[in-house]
């Protein structure tokens, strides 16, 4: 069953701007992960945040997690054309495979 829902479905920004994507989920989780998918390629893991963490950084990426609202956000700062891709959140709940959302399509215009 689908767990995560990303918002917005599509986002178009200028190079240098920040991009924010949101993810909402329905049940309790162990961790939440964000993945990137370039066109015609497989998904690539970006960052994992555990349920007892509130914020995590990795380079230009910043992820927040609010378990009370069952939501997470991914912020990409100073975006580049190479950041153009689809971004998926995925949730882990114990002994079950990751459940992915439908993704946000990000277009960064040079």
């Amino acid at each position: 069953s689908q767990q995560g829902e990303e918002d917005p479905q599509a986002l178009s920004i200028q190079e240098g701007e920040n991009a924010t994507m949101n993810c909402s989920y329905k049940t309790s989780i162990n961790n939440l992960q964000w993945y990137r998918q370039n066109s015609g390629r497989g998904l690539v893991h970006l960052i994992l945040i555990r349920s007892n963490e509130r914020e995590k950084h990795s380079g230009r990426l910043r992820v927040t997690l609010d378990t009370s609202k069952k939501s997470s956000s991914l912020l990409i700062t100073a975006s580049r054309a190479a950041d153009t891709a689809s971004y998926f959140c995925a949730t882990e709940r114990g002994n079950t495979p990751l459940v992915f959302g439908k993704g946000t399509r990000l277009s960064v215009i040079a």
Partner: protein
Amino acid sequence: DTAVSQTPKYLVTQMGNDKSIKCEQNLGHDTMYWYKQDSKKFLKIMFSYNNKELIINETVPNRFSPKSPDKAHLNLHINSLELGDSAVYFCASSQALGTGVEKLFFGSGTQLSVL
């Protein structure tokens, strides 16, 4: 060195045919998966294998039969292909299911088109 490799990348076939997709991982992971991504980019788990044993089968028609000869390989055989099977199929692997830090490594996908 490709960590998770799947072949073929493209597969075009007629309805009713039987086809296989192969997957291999060289990461030493215990768990492998098949995911299906539809035209709307929705990614859905199909199967999960841990050390050659099936642990998850997400109500996939029995026309789909995964086979894991060893923990580094998970192949997908599809019988009597239907139009609705057209999608991109992704193989993935992770260290171990249920560790709480299950990060997936994906293959590059197999785009299946059933005509």
